[in-house]
Structure formats: C-alpha cells, structure tokens
C-alpha cells in the first residue's frame, strides 16, 4: 500500500492504494467517480480517457504511482448536472451520444483537441478523436457536436 495525494477536479485527495492500481480503478472503485468508463482495458478504445496534468491519457494504462502530486480531470470535473460544459451541451443537442459508454472519453478528447486546435478541420477532428472508439453513433454526429462547440466558442469571443 502507499498513500497517494493528488488534485482531482480542483480538490486535493489522498488515497491509500497499491501503487500499481490503475488510475481507472482508483477513480471508480476507491473514489466512486464512475463517469470514467472501462472498455478494453488495454489502450485501444479511449473510453477511460482522463486529463493528467492537462494531457489526455488512457487511465487504464496509468499506474497510480504516476499520479502522486499530479492534477487529474475527469468528466465529473468538466461540468455539472445543472450546468453542463458547452461540449456536453453540444453532444446532447447534436446527438453525439447514444449508449453513452464512449461519451465521457469523447468529451475529454474533444476538450484536449479544442485546446490544441480551437477551430479544427474535419481531418483534425478525425485525428484528434481517433483514440476513442464509438459503436453507436457512426461518428458523424460526434464530429458535428465538436464543430458546433468550436463555432459557439468562436461566436462567444
């Protein structure tokens, strides 16, 4: 066991866990934040995506030992039920979510993408979200949700 302290969604947390516990399990099992989903468990699907020090990573491949002192943002840190993040709002309005398993990861990947490319081309969207698989939507609605978010951000400036 080791004691790990890090910043999770803007608050400081301290947890006791074996150092090789996956960040995914730390979030879901120890901290009861179940917004982060497990799909493949081996880096293929992106449904477990979170932001680690602002960078998009697969939490199924991050051992807890690498989280000590870091900043982690999960889907719970992006918006709230009563006050959705614009990306969440656009996914909802454009039909970018169906069963919802891929959605938290897609939204964090979108967040990461829009930070690097505030007005992404379709190719940049395809590439930026290529680490996130979706079995429901066929992706087109997701791409539209991303474009819509970028458009709103541009208009709001």
């Amino acid at each position: 066991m080791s004691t790990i302290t890090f910043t999770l969604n803007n608050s400081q947390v301290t947890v006791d866990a074996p150092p090789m516990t996956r960040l995914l399990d730390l979030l879901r099992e120890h901290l009861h934040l179940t917004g982060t989903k497990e799909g493949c468990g081996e880096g293929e699907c992106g449904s477990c995506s979170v932001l680690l020090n602002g960078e998009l990573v697969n939490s199924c491949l991050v051992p807890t030992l690498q989280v000590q002192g870091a900043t982690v943002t999960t889907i719970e840190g992006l918006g709230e039920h009563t006050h959705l993040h614009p990306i969440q709002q656009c996914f909802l309005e454009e039909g970018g979510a169906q069963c919802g398993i891929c959605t938290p990861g897609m939204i964090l990947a979108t967040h990461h993408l829009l930070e690097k490319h505030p007005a992404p081309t379709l190719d940049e969207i395809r590439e930026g979200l290529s680490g996130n698989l979706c079995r429901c939507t066929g992706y087109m609605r997701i791409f539209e949700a991303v474009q819509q978010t970028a458009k709103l951000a541009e208009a709001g400036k």
Partner: protein
Amino acid sequence: MIDFELTRVGTPDAAVQIAAATPTAQQGATVRFIAGGTNLIDYMKLDVETPQHLVDINRIPDLAKVEKQPDGSLKIGALVRNSDLAQAPEVLAEYPVLSQALLSGASAQLRNKATTSGNLLQRTRCPYFRDLAYAECNKRTPGSGCAAIGGYHRNHAILGVSDQCIATHASDMDVALMVLDAVIHVQGIKGNRTIPIGEFYKLPGTTPHIENALEPGDLITHVTLPALPETKQIYLKLRDRASYEFALASAAIVMQVQGGRLRHVRVAMGGVGTRPWRMPEAEHALEGQAPGEGVFRAAADAALKTARPHTDNAFKIPLAKLCMIRALTTVTNA
C-alpha cells in the same frame, strides 16, 4: 499480475544498480524500468512480463530534453514523450520523417505518455505472444514452438523471419530512426556505451526471446541523430484503417535530388520485418539514378527479394513494394 517491489529512483546510477540484479534484460527479466508504462503495464496485466522489481525512472532529471549538440547532432532524452518529440521544432525542421512516423502511431492518449526509450523497447503485438492460453511461443517460452506459423499470421513478418519466430516489430518511430542512423546511448554496470540502431535489434533466429543488445542493468539514457544535409523525407504508413492501427507496411525515406539524380538515399520499412527493416538493396538500386517508376520498381523488387511469407501474409510482398514505390514517388515530387 504478480506481486512486485517498486522503487522510484532519482539518478541513472541508482536505476542501473538496481537493474543489475536481473539475470537477463530480455524476456523473463526480473527487474524492469517503467517509463510511460503503456507497453509494460499492458504486458504485466497479461502476465507476459513478470518483473519482481519495478524501477520508476520518471523522476530522473534531464532525461526529458531535446537538445541540439555542438556537433550539429540532436540529443533526444529517453523520457521525451512521443507527442512532444513529434512537435519539437528541431525535429519538424530537420527530421520530419520522425515527426510523421510518431504521429502515425497509436493515439493522442498513448503518445502523450509513451517515451523514446519505451517506444524503442515495445514488445511485439503477436496475438499468441500476448495470450498465455497458447503454450507455443518461442519468444515467451524458449523451445515451446511457434503458434503463429501454421496459425493466424496475417499481420506477421516476411523479412528476417526464422523457423522459430515470425513476429513483426511493431514500432513506427524506430523505422524513422533507422533511416536517420540514430545512435542509442546506454548506461550500464560497466559504464556508458553507444549502440548504432542498426546493431541494436537482434534477428529472431533460434533465440527469438533475445530481442536487442541490452544487458542486465542497462538504462537507455538518450538517442542521438547525426546532423543531416538538407534532404527530402517521408513516412508512409499503410494499415487496415486510416488511423490508430499498426502498420501492415510502412516506408521511411530520406533522400536528395541533385541535378536530376538521387543522392544520400536511405530506405527502411516497418510492418514487414522482425525488426525495423533498413533496405540497403533498395538504397543501392536508387543511389545516383534518375527518379522514375522503373527505377523505383527495381529498388522495391531488390528490397523484397529475400522475403519469406507464409500463407496468410504473402499479400505483404506486393503491398510493401507498392508502399515503397508510392513513398518514393511522393517524396521525389515534393
């Protein structure tokens, strides 16, 4: 996953000292360094990697830098993330083939964690190697046989194969490093040494469990890329879907066109070899020639002459040739 001890080290010396206790740095190592962890954690979960001692090297200072050296070479630290290396200004300006290769590999999530040294040492994706349910795998259990030969081997290698193993080397980055004549810098128990990338990877032969030149204790500290004259470069990757998939065939090319002639030609391919595959036969066929379809085809034929396919992966021979021809055509016209 088995139980193991974990140590976080702050210096290369400490890392080397702990790792010296492993009887081998190859399959079966009892001490492993952990860098990004995207490969090691995966294989530990599958019980293919069973280290008793993990050494976290992420806190060693200075291993995450990209620096131009006085002699014009580029020094790339072992812990530079693949995503950072792909965007490094020096790489974009002088070694774009490396940037293209990195960006064609894995996903944003993985590149943000994957490191230079971890990418160099990533294990094969052979499905039988990954799955302990199959007893036959000479790479995992020497002498047990090879389930891929006679099994499913559409993705397997056609160059450098042996009767014991036909596993493909999976990296994109390393194919670019082959044409850039990268040098790998290692700190070991007997001091520091350098290994040219062309001598780093071992052919499977009768010992597929031995993959590279590393000895117990060896820590990769950095990689250097020699200075290059101005060249045209390309990395072209062909795969089953347009993104986020390992290569079926890929080509890395560095060359100059001077007075209508090809000079300084370097060619390597990924997805087809048991190690990242440099192609001196193709380079020889191209050097000094005027670019053109016939010359390109002759080079591709020469490079694939020694290919040894099995039933499901014979398609890789024409695919690899077309990949090389298309890469050559694109880069000479660029």
